[in-house]
């Protein structure tokens, strides 16, 4: 029994699931296809899916960045803190992006130049950056941003589409070009497959890794600012736990946790899949643990199915020869 290659692809499975979920949503809720709902569907998770794009690069590269949600919180808190200390908001925003870049570069330094595992380094970042964020804003909630800032996260810009959604679409195109159409993208895959081989063939492994982690930190900071703009108020616990949702999206997209394989089409489909699933469950009044469990089950499948298929495939081949 051999399936045509296109049907064996992970992306095909995601597409089938996506169509199925879309169909169920249409059947269940008359509100699902409304323009406002489609915009909300993206808006409610927009910061996570923006960070998922750089996370894809990191994971394909064979690393992980657990600190992204803490960097999101840190950037929002830095901006709010500086703004309330009397600094003009544009400068505060720039400073917070710089803080994100610095946090990412700090992670990258330990991973690339010292050779520590990114799991450990960014776990420390997850705790440390959140700590700094909490020290900055303490127990307070900072609001009172100018209207133009809140509008960045809340108001439609092009038609019904918000600034955040435009940022996401532009970044999606950008990351697609980098990963699938550039020399850097090829290096990301090569290193993800076999970092030793890459090193011996003259790839500047350290520089690439530092660049990726810095990009991850910067984008997380940008996402944190968009989140602050969407909510109109900043607290120390902003975006806590988001890293798991972000990594879930990437893994469900068929990106191997061991690096070296996966593509942005899969991640794009996975984003649509999870967002539509969440939205559909929300409109069907399924919330809380039930919702979490369904998405959790999906992730378990996404990790198990390809691995089991691989194992079975190898066994089958072994029998043939």
């Amino acid at each position, binding site marked *: 029994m051999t399936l045509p290659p296109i049907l064996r692809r992970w992306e095909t499975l995601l597409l089938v699931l996506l169509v199925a979920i879309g169909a169920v949503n249409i059947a269940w809720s008359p509100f699902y296809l409304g323009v406002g709902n489609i915009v*909300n569907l993206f808006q*409610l998770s927009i910061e996570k899916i923006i960070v998922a794009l750089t996370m894809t690069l990191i994971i394909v590269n064979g690393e992980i960045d657990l600190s992204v949600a803490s960097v999101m919180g840190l950037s929002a808190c830095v901006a709010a803190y500086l703004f309330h200390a009397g600094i003009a908001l544009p400068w505060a925003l720039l400073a917070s992006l710089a803080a994100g870049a610095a946090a990412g570069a700090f992670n990258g330094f330990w991973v690339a130049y010292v050779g520590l595992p990114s799991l450990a380094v960014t776990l420390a970042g997850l705790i440390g950056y959140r700590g700094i964020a909490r020290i900055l804003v303490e127990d307070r909630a900072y609001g009172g941003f100018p209207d133009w800032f809140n509008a960045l996260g809340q108001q439609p810009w092009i038609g019904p589409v918000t600034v955040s959604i435009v940022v996401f679409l532009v970044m999606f195109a950008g990351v697609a070009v980098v990963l699938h159409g550039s020399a850097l993208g090829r290096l990301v895959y090569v290193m993800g497959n076999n970092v030793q081989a890459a090193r011996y063939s003259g790839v500047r492994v350290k520089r690439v890794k530092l660049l990726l982690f810095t990009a991850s930190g910067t984008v997380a900071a940008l996402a944190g600012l968009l989140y602050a703009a969407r*909510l109109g108020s900043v*607290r120390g616990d902003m975006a*806590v736990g988001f890293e798991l949702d972000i990594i879930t999206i990437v893994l469900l997209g068929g990106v191997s946790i061991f690096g070296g394989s996966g593509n942005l089409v899969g991640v794009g489909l996975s984003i649509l899949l999870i967002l539509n699933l969440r939205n559909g469950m*929300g*409109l069907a009044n399924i*919330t*809380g*643990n039930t919702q979490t469990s369904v998405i959790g089950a999906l992730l378990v499948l996404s990790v198990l199915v390809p691995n089991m298929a691989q194992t079975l495939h190898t066994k089958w081949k072994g029998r043939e020869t």
Partner: protein
Amino acid sequence: MKKILLATVAATMLGLLAPHGASAQTTIEPGKPVEMVLLPKFLGILPFDQAHKGAEEAAAELKNAKTLQYLGPTPENSVAGQIEIVTNATTQGVGAIMMSNNSGDQIVPAAKAAHAKGIKVVTWDSPIPSAEGEDVFVAQVDFSETGKVMADMALSIMGPDGGKFAILSASPDAANQNAWIAAMQTALKDPKYAKLEVVGIVYGNDQSEASYSQALALVDKYPGIKLIMAPTSVGIVAAAKAMQDEKLCDKIKVSGLGVPAEMLAYTKNGCAPQFALWSFVDLGYLSYYTAYGLATGAIKAEAGASFKAGRLGNYTITKDPTRKEGLRVLMGPFSKYDASNVEAAAK
């Protein structure tokens, strides 16, 4: 002249009476179909389930043909989850959202969007701090009374010699807990509490494990404390369990705001000799009456509006004295529990 004077007096008196006449108790008309969402801070703890029970009771009395939706996020995803639920309810165009707000002012954009679509937003248990996007807050008890009740329990447990005690709260920006703690600090200024001293506040984020370890951390950090005061139903149970597990109940007592069913064992064994609470069932019930009344147009969200809320009797909407802006309906009163009455209340 005398007649004119008399007439003036009469007119003035009528004038005084008129507002009362105009705001006579509105009877809320049952039987209208209104989609309503009850949104707790998160699912899975008893007080919110009790509020749900009370809201269901009111829904049955008001013969609302639409099923009450009890929707909530998980504790870990409370803020983003509440925003998501409010946004989806807005998409669905429900009639009213009743929310125990856990998101501070971060809920404001979502609440305003709901409000702009004509949805009535009633908060209960915990309001929107800025009151933006909110019609009315159904307050459980007066915040200053909460402070006094906690001060009294502290005095009664620690005795006339007083001593040091610490506070285990929910999250650092939980609007209600902060207001209660502030009210207690104010109450403690009364000379009668002169020997009571608050040494510190820690936060367990309304999660059992975090609250448990924060309670133990308090014991290490402030040796010699005689009491942990926890104005949160999650925190008080966790603290009582921590003291019981560490066999510290002889030295350190626990008090605060708790649910009788959860506190029964600890009150019986002396770890938490006294605690207080309002009825969450009644709070859910009153919130439902308020939201239903607003959504059906029977009540207007303005100071002075009065209405009858079923078995609980009459209530009036007033300006909320605990916030800069906003309206509230005050439920009250407190119930205090100790070994003598906790068993009956736990049933």
